[in-house]
Structure formats: structure tokens, C-alpha cells
């Protein structure tokens, strides 16, 4: 397995070398070199912010094609709750039923809602909150946020709740139930996440809190959108046979939905990756030490705002709300979720490791020297943060120079200064030459 698998990729031909992405990347993971953007693998957290801001659509996310499900004898679809909000379906009360049956007609043997996994996670998190320990506990649901913590806030890794993400729990339970019901071997079952987000794809390929993911692939919502829309139209309000998630699970698609499902009042939900970074900064400074639970989601609005969805985050957010109101709560689903949570299916054991991207050198004295060099360079650079050098700020360029990845001449202002100096030298030399010529006459 690759050490740094990334779902977010660059399509070189489409990249114009502008500064939109380098400016918005929350981990300063993009540089423009030779007129093309370049993603720094060890820094990228796959939040997909660059996909959203690129005006040329040069950034995309690698996900699995729908055809990949044929690798397995039995296929289970794991739809993210954000999927339900992609379709208009006015005046239809059985929206979720239609989506689930629609998915089954697309080649899946069964469908298991990620929202059901979310309900199990909610119960497991509530139990973790009863135990004493670091506060606030930080949600592990958004893999981009967990990676942001690894890269920029490693000292908060101990606060991340030791509960798996809903899709992982859903995959595990779905496979177990399907194997038991149909008397087949688990290895013959493939579970595919219908995902709004590239970070989930990454966490399937290189999981954070376990050795191997229980999810076998991730298909983007955009990939199934067209086909599924067609299926919904032809579906005569087909009933989906099976237990469905309640509003508590589906609500996770919106920011704050997890907090509501967990039932923690002393909590804070923040969405949008730069907002989350600010909040984590506050947690780091102990300004939120009285808080019990922190839910941070990389996308504005929550998972409904993922880069791989069709509908606008705001439209989707309001639809999720409506669907939740229609479906309501379900005591049986919650009791079942409680049982699963008690069985430990959602608990993670693997300690997450910090990603050391900020450290300048393994040798502390050398690192100190480099810090000094950076400060000297920052003084010398114009401080305009124009991005023309390909780094997001003058300070970032100074760091790149000290790390050996860039040169002072990459700064257009320093270059201009140098050219001016050379031009003056030449004029000076030429005039001296002329004087000597005059003298010989």
C-alpha cells in the first residue's frame, strides 16, 4: 500500500498555474512550479477544498468506477445520507425508499445505509463521553479533519474519540448481517461507499485508525447521480424491505447532526475546513476546555457540501432537514444501535500517529538555524503574499527556500531587483567603456 495514497489529483493539462488553490489549501500543500500546480503528498489531507476553488476544474478526485463492484460475487451499496438530498422528489414521502431500491436495481445485492452505521457510532460516542479523559472529545467522523489534526495539531490526537467512522461500522455490520442471512463467506462480499467526499476514498485506501478498511471501494455520488435519477423515475414507489435508519442517523449529513445524535448538549459543531482549523487552534490554547464534544466537518454545511455531490450544499441541507422531519425517530433502530455499540463494533484501538511535516530538521540545533534563516528571508521578501513564486505566502516561500525546494529568484520582486541591478551595472560598464574610448581619441 502507498504510504500517502491521495484521492485528490491534478489534471495537468487543465491547470493554468493560477494562485487560487495555493491560497486556499488549509495545510499549504500546493505549490505552482513551472506553471503547473503540484500537490505535496505528505501535507495533503484530501479535504477537496482545491477541487472546489479551481476555476478550471483541474483538480479532481479519484474514486472507483461503478463497474468495479463486479470484482465481488455479492455487492452491498453503502449510501451516505447526503445522497438522499441530491434528488428533488417533491411531494414524495418515500424518498429514502426510492433511493435505496434504485441502488438495488443498479447491480447491488443489498443496500445498507451509512446512516445506520452513524446511529451505532452515536451510541458508542455517548459511552465514551461517560468515561473520564481528555476534553473536548473530538469527532473522528470527518477524515479530512482527523488528517488536519495529524498534520497541524498533533497534540490533539489524544482527544480524537476512539470510535470508527460511520461508513466503516456500516460496512462491518452490513457484511456480517448479509453473510449470516444468506449463508455466504464474508470474503465474497464487497461493500461500496457511495461517497460525497474524496477524503473517505483516501481513508479506505490508507485507514487512519485501523490496519485495513472494511469498505472495499468508494464510488462518488456524481458517478451514480445520472443513472440513479433515471432509476428513481421508473421506480413505482418500490418499497425497500429492511430496517431503515431514523432521523438521528440521516441527520449526520448536516453539520451538527452528529452532535444531536450523540445527545451531547455541551458541544460545538463547526463546518468549513478553515473554520475548523481556527476552532482547533482555540482548543489547542485551552480556550474550549469546558467543552465536552467537538464536531468538525471539512465541508461547508457538513457532508452535504462534499466536493463530489451534485446539489448545492444549502439546498441539500434543507432537504436533509425535511427528510429527517418526515422519517422521525425510531426506538427500535436506536435499541439495535445500542446493542451493536455495546458489542464494540465501532471501537477503534490503533493509536493515530502524528505526521511530521512542520519539523524543519531532525537535529534541533539545525532546525533552530533554519528558523533563523527563514526569519531573515521573510525580512528580505516583499511581504505581499502575491503567490507569483508558486508558494501561498512569502513566509511559505522562505520555508521552501530553507528546505531546499525553492530559490530566492523565484520571487518576482527579488528577480526584478536583481535585473535592475544588473542593468545598471551594464550601463555603468558601457559608459566606462565609452569614456576610455573618448580618452584614446
Amino acid at each position: 500500500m502507498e504510504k500517502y495514497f491521495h484521492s485528490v489529483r491534478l489534471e495537468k493539462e487543465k491547470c493554468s498555474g493560477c494562485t487560487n488553490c495555493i491560497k486556499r489549501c488549509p495545510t499549504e500543500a500546493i505549490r505552482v512550479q513551472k506553471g503547473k500546480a503540484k500537490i505535496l503528498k505528505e501535507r495533503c489531507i484530501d479535504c477537496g477544498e482545491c477541487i472546489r476553488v479551481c476555476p478550471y476544474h483541474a483538480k479532481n478526485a479519484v474514486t472507483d468506477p461503478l463497474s468495479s463492484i463486479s470484482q465481488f460475487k455479492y455487492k452491498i451499496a453503502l449510501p451516505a445520507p447526503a445522497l438522499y438530498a441530491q434528488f428533488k422528489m417533491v411531494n414524495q414521502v418515500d424518498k429514502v425508499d426510492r433511493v435505496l431500491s434504485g441502488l438495488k436495481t443498479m447491480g447491488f445485492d443489498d443496500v445498507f445505509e451509512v446512516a445506520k452505521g452513524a446511529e451505532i457510532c452515536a451510541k458508542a460516542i455517548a459511552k465514551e463521553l461517560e468515561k473520564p479523559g481528555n476534553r473536548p472529545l473530538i469527532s473522528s467522523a470527518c477524515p479530512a479533519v482527523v488528517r488536519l489534526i495529524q498534520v497541524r495539531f498533533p497534540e490533539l490526537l489524544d482527544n480524537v474519540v476512539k470510535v470508527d467512522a460511520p461508513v466503516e461500522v456500516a460496512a462491518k455490520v452490513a457484511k456480517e448481517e448479509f453473510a449470516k442471512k444468506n449463508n455466504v463467506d464474508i470474503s465474497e462480499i464487497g461493500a461500496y461507499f457511495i461517497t460525497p467526499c474524496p477524503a473517505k476514498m483516501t481513508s479506505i485506501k490508507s485507514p487512519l485508525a485501523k490496519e485495513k478498511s472494511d469498505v472495499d471501494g468508494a464510488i462518488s455520488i456524481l458517478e451514480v447521480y445520472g443513472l440513479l435519477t433515471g432509476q428513481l423515475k421508473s421506480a413505482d414507489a418500490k418499497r425497500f424491505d429492511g430496517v431503515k435508519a431514523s432521523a438521528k442517523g440521516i441527520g449526520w449529513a448536516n453539520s451538527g447532526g452528529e452532535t444531536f445524535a450523540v445527545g451531547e448538549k455541551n458541544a460545538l459543531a463547526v463546518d468549513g475546513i478553515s473554520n475548523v482549523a481556527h476552532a482547533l487552534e482555540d482548543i489547542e490554547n485551552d480556550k474550549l476546555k469546558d467543552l465536552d464534544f467537538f464536531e468538525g466537518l471539512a465541508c461547508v454545511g457538513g457532508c452535504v457540501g462534499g466536493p463530489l455531490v451534485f446539489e448545492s450544499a444549502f439546498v441539500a441541507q434543507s432537504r436533509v432537514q425535511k427528510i429527517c422531519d418526515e422519517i422521525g425517530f425510531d426506538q427500535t433502530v436506536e435499541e439495535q444501535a445500542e446493542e451493536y455499540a455495546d458489542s464494540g463494533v465501532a471501537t477503534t484501538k490503533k493509536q493515530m500517529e502524528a505526521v511530521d511535516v512542520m519539523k524543519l530538521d531532525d537535529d534541533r540545533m539545525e532546525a533552530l538555524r533554519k528558523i533563523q534563516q527563514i526569519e531573515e528571508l521573510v525580512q528580505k521578501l516583499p511581504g505581499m503574499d502575491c503567490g507569483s513564486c508558486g508558494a501561498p505566502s512569502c513566509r511559505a516561500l522562505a520555508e521552501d527556500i530553507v528546505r531546499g525546494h525553492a530559490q530566492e529568484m523565484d520571487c518576482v520582486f527579488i528577480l526584478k531587483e536583481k535585473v535592475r541591478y544588473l542593468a545598471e551595472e551594464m550601463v555603468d560598464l558601457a559608459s566606462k567603456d565609452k569614456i576610455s574610448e573618448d580618452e584614446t581619441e
Partner: protein
Amino acid sequence: MIYTRDYEIKKDDFVAAGEVSARIKNKLKQLGVDPALIRKIAIASYEAEINMIIHSLGGHMQLDIDEDSIMITCADTGPGIPDIELAMQEGYSTASDTVREMGFGAGMGLPNMNKNSDNMHIESSPAGTTVTLKFQM
């Protein structure tokens, strides 16, 4: 000292509050200091910075790093702490209502700085207060 850096702190400069401690924190991350220690220094230096903005007439924060220790010296130009022992008590605060409305002034500044540093030393007179925070790496 192998590395020294001086930062100016202005009285009532709430707009810039937290910037100096954020810069210090960033440097320690670049240095590769243990995350748990960074957290302690982040908390202590943030409290120190806010304290100077709220209570002092302004001054300087100095970061000193050598091979095995980190020192933060906060020196202001007054008005001094009349009773250091009282100021060290949790919950004791002289902050104004305006400051409290901003969410500060809970009387945990000095106690938190003390708790999160390996050694804290305070010297104070009406001409100014100097708080020295030491951390072992």
C-alpha cells in the same frame, strides 16, 4: 542562548491578541518539540500574552531557546501586581467588566501559567512586572 526572539505586546490590543503565542507555537512545531510540551507552552504563552494586553501598560515577550530548555520572559512597563500571592489564587481577578464580557478575566491566567510551566518566577513593582516561564525539553 542559541535562539532569541523579541515580540512587542501593546496594551488593549485585542485585535492582535494571540498572535505572538501563535507564532511561538509555530516555531516550536518547526523545531520538532514534543507535541505534549508544545500544548503546555501554547497555553502558558497565550495566557501570558492576554494578561499583558489586559492588565499591563504593554511590554515585550521574549522567547529564548537553548539545547534543552525554552524560556519565555514577559516584561511590561507597569502598573505592577500589588499582591502576587493573591493574584496567584485561582479565580482572583482585577479585570474590568468590559474585559470579562469579552470572555477573559476568569482569574485563571497566572495559575494556568504556573501549572503549565516547569518553573515560573514573578518580579513586580509599580515600574513593571517580569514573569519568567521555564520549560524543560
